């Protein structure tokens, strides 16, 4: 992949002279990953650790008539076989996002299985081999029942219920109206309707989920190491096990081998925690790929959109009516909320006047859905971009021109959208133009048209998409007004030790996003120390300050904000010590690289070493009332957040909005339907880039992820509910061979809401690439008069569309 030139997210726009932020500097995590010295859950070894293996149900829906574990328990080396009934007797159901009291989710199936692959029993043995031997000896008597697989059928179904006690398969059904939709439709020149489908795909990290638990009978603390990325993990673990929160210590200093939302691990961790305490032995469960894909936390949104678009003859889009039906699978967790986050950017980057939004989450006999990168925004962005392309096709207008007519102009920020978000900042037209320049759009058009003249199917994709960043779970309130939760904080602690060395302590695990680099860079910038000399550690859950974990493209904004706040407190403290000892008002003093001097007489100064000595050793030189030591804590609330929705359900959910313009070029083999992505240009604006290599990795990695969702990846089920994609032979992820050379360019429109003008960047490539590839494929099919609005656009579907008219 070639490095493109461009504004490397220069925060010079913030009017500050930056030394470390926005500079191309080494990513500190890289060394340990490249040299194989990372520490993952699997690398944590405790003496006498036992190994667990789980028994999956072969049936998507079946009554469990009996489970005979005697032969398995008799096997040499087996310590315990736990069934769902035994587990349920000793724990509470796992708390769901929505209050659905009759949707009871236990770590192991109780009485009934609800998807193929659901865990029915777990074995603990001396080795993982013996544990798997024992699985084969467990006798389960099932009574198979007809499953409900199709989400539309599930929605309408009254007899065939995934959770009979709940009374229907509908987990959530909400109606939102922002603005005068009927009026806008009536006044518009024209309208169109389409159905678009987002396939069940996910992030599929290279490390599956793993957890290791140890019960310390002496201290009565449950120690757990788990590859998680999840807010409220310990709270959920405690409430499920019925333990006091302060009995559990989650070790967050393990590296997490990829996540982007899917490393939930709650049922897995409940199981190992329970077993470790029961057996008084450390117990470890490392999912293998088959278990992970079928019964772990692997599946993302699976969504059908029915959209009506009202527009003028000039292609100005006035209003949208959206029905989104999402297949949450058997146990919803937080899945329904993935329909709610997109409310924060429900009109995309466009000046659409009004929106009607019907959101439905249904249960089916499939693996439960978990959060995936963007938390529902990628499917919504895809639908919005398909709407814009459809309007252009309908009016026979250029897709670029239609976008230019609808993009929010740069002088309109902050811009309030109908659902209540204020978009913080943006310059969409300029970023789009940068993308077009990078793609050499005129040459690309010639290339496409030449290919077409030679009889090939060639297309250019255009997608202009938003990435809400910063996080805030006020969307929970939109779905459940009893969930009056407006806090979504992130915190850190900064310590300066007696040597003057700086240590930053964050409160979560990290799963490849480079938080240590981020944190150190901001501390270095603010305190004027080389970030490479700043230590970053991950507190365990008993010593950590409040966190909502690295979700929602939020850590640059939130950990960045917390770090800036804590650094400010450190400087304030240093300044107070200096003012007292130099006998000068703080206003006359100036801080430079840790040394504080009198502006009027620079020879009067206190060095960093002297300040640290006073803080730790010279109580008599501390200002009266100041506590000894040298540390600061800062808890940062989401900027602009903290309010409940108004009476018309308008609310600011996410604070910051990053923007991207994607321009891929594809060709399709008309004989086989195979799509080749031959070129890709992306212009990206996430405000100030804190570390260029990290952002570039996010953008290009996300883009590859999006190409996977667009063309290849699907967790597929057959009509009987059998799971067909349990390995990488059937769940197809793109490799380097399928990803073209990506040209990328950054633009910087700083956010006015954040410490350094930064916005989120972890989701961006993924939030636009599926839409862009779909746009390109449909452009290639346009001369044939064909469209495909279903992801993934597998080659056999495209071929059938071309050669069989069926699709």
């Amino acid at each position: 992949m070639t490095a493109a030139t461009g504004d490397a997210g220069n925060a010079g726009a913030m009017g500050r002279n930056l030394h470390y932020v926005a500079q191309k500097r080494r990513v500190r995590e890289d060394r340990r990953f490249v040299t194989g010295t990372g520490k993952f859950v699997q690398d944590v070894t405790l003496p006498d650790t036992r190994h667990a293996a789980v028994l999956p149900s072969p049936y998507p829906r079946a009554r469990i008539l009996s489970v005979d574990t005697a032969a398995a328990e008799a096997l040499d080396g087996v310590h315990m076989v736990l069934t769902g009934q035994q587990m349920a007797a000793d724990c509470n159901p796992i708390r769901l996002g929505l209050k659905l009291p009759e949707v009871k989710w236990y770590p192991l199936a109780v009485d009934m299985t609800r998807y193929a692959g659901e865990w029915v029993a777990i074995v603990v043995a001396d080795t993982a081999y013996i544990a798997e031997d024992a699985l084969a000896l467990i006798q389960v008597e099932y009574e198979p029942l007809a499953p409900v697989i199709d989400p539309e059928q599930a929605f309408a179904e009254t007899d065939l219920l995934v959770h009979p006690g709940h009374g229907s398969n509908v987990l959530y059904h909400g109606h939102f109206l922002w603005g005068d939709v009927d009026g806008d439709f009536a006044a518009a020149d024209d309208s169109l309707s389409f159905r678009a489908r987002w396939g069940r795909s996910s992030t599929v990290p290279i490390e599956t989920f793993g957890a290791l638990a140890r019960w310390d009978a002496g201290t009565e603390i449950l120690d757990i190491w788990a590859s998680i990325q999840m807010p409220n993990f310990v709270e959920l673990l405690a409430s499920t096990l019925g333990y006091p929160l302060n009995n559990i210590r989650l070790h967050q200093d393990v590296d997490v081998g990829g996540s982007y939302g899917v490393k939930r691990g709650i049922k897995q961790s409940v199981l190992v925690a329970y077993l470790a305490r029961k057996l008084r032995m450390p117990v470890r469960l490392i999912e293998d790929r088959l278990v992970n894909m079928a019964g772990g936390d692997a599946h993302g949104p699976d969504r059908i959109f029915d959209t009506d678009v009202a527009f003028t003859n000039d292609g100005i889009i006035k209003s949208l009516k959206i029905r989104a039906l999402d297949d949450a699978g058997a146990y919803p967790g937080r899945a329904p909320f993935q329909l709610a986050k997109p409310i924060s950017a429900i009109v995309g980057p466009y000046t659409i006047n009004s929106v009607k939004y019907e959101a439905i989450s249904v249960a089916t006999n499939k693996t439960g859905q978990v959060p995936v990168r963007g938390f529902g925004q990628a499917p919504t962005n895809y639908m919005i971009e398909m709407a814009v392309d459809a309007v252009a096709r309908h009016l026979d207008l250029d897709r670029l021109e239609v976008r230019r007519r609808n993009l929010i102009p740069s002088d309109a920020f902050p811009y309030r959208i109908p659902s209540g978000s204020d978009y913080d900042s943006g310059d969409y037209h300029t970023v789009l133009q940068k993308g077009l320049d990078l793609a050499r759009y005129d040459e690309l058009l010639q290339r496409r048209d030449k290919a077409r003249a030679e009889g090939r199917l060639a297309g250019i994709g255009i997608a202009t998409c938003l990435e809400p960043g910063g996080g805030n779970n006020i969307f929970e309130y939109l779905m459940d007004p009893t969930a009056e939760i407006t806090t979504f904080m992130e915190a850190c602690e900064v310590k300066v030790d007696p040597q003057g060395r700086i240590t930053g302590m964050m409160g979560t695990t990290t799963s490849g996003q480079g938080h240590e680099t981020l944190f150190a860079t901001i501390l270095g910038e603010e305190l004027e120390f080389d970030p490479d000399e700043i230590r970053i550690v991950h507190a365990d859950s008993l010593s950590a300050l409040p966190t909502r974990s690295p979700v929602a493209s939020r850590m640059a904004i939130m950990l960045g904000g917390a770090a800036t706040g804590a650094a400010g407190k450190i400087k304030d403290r240093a300044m107070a010590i200096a003012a007292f000892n130099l006998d000068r008002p703080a206003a006359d003093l100036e801080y430079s690289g840790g040394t504080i001097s009198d502006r009027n007489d620079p020879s009067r100064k206190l060095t960093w070493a002297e300040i640290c000595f006073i803080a730790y050793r010279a109580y008599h030189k501390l200002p009266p009332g100041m506590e000894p030591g040298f540390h600061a804590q800062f808890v940062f609330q989401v900027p602009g957040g903290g309010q409940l929705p108004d009476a018309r359900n308008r609310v600011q959910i996410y604070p910051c909005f990053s923007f991207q313009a994607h321009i891929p070029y594809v060709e399709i083999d008309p004989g086989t339907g195979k799509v080749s992505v031959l070129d890709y240009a992306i212009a990206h604006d996430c405000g100030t880039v804190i570390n260029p290599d990290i952002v570039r990795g996010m953008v290009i990695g996300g883009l590859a992820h999006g190409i996977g969702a667009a063309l290849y990846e699907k967790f597929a089920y057959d009509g009987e509910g059998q799971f067909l994609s349990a390995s990488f032979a059937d769940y197809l992820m793109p490799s380097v061979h399928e990803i073209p050379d990506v040209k990328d360019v950054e633009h910087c429109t700083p956010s006015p809401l954040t410490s350094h003008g930064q916005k989120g960047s972890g989701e961006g490539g993924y939030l636009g690439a599926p839409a862009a590839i779909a746009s390109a494929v449909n452009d290639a099919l346009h001369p044939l008069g064909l469209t495909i609005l279903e992801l993934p656009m597998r080659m056999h579907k495209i071929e059938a569309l071309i050669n069989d008219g069926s699709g």
Partner: protein
Amino acid sequence: MKAAKFDYVLAESIEQAVAALAAGNGDAIIIAGGQSLMPMLAMRLATPATVVDINNIAQLSGIEAIGGEVVIKACTRQATALASPLVQMRLPLLAKAISHVGHQQTRNRGTVGGSLSHADPASEIPLAALAMDARVSLRSVAGTREVALADFFLGPMMTARADNEILLKVHFPEEPDGPDGSRMGTAFHEVSERHGDFAVVAAAAQIQLDANGRCIKAALALGGVNGVPRRIPALEARLRGTRIDPDAVRAVLPEIADAITPGDDQHASAAYRRRVAGVLAERALLEAVAEAAP
């Protein structure tokens, strides 16, 4: 994904290997490169009592030209075969096929004989070998026999090799350009979603033209369209003796329809495989003819 218990025999000679197979009584399996067998063991899709490792048997590696044949010994790595000048010069269809097998890393381990013994209906080496009229030598404690590839594949992952036999080598008849000006052309086409995947559909063609451009011999084999790789004899017969041009190829393609019985799965429908078999056959035949054209 932890293998069930098995006994492991590291055979140092062909004799030791066949003895271990005989002792296994039908429940012993050979491991060579392990690119298919290791995942099958890990997933417990294969639970043999004994695994006989043949990687140390020097007599099972190597490529040589003997009496009008190129012989590839079973444990020869796919990467070695692909890099071999003998294969590139004299068995160009095989070289083209192997370039589609997995990735460099898997070809470094995977073997030619292992691919034939495994007999995945969508794999490339069996398809090319079938088009090339190859034979295999099989050995057990009872002795050695040869089986033509046309008789070797019985079904998906099923071959004529008995449980107590080891595949020793593959014999490829050489098809040199004739002194009379006849020339051979080959082509291998496949479609898969991603680079390195098993083919959804694949076509291998080998065409010999005389000095006047008339077809002397034609072979077309299709993969992914049956439980076993398939030759299309009726199509081949109609091409022999003719001058092959695009119209001629199109005229004979309907012969494919009756010779294949593709199935449906999540990656492609039977109808897709039927249509694409024709597309790839046409491309492969025309490319082979173009290569052979005087």
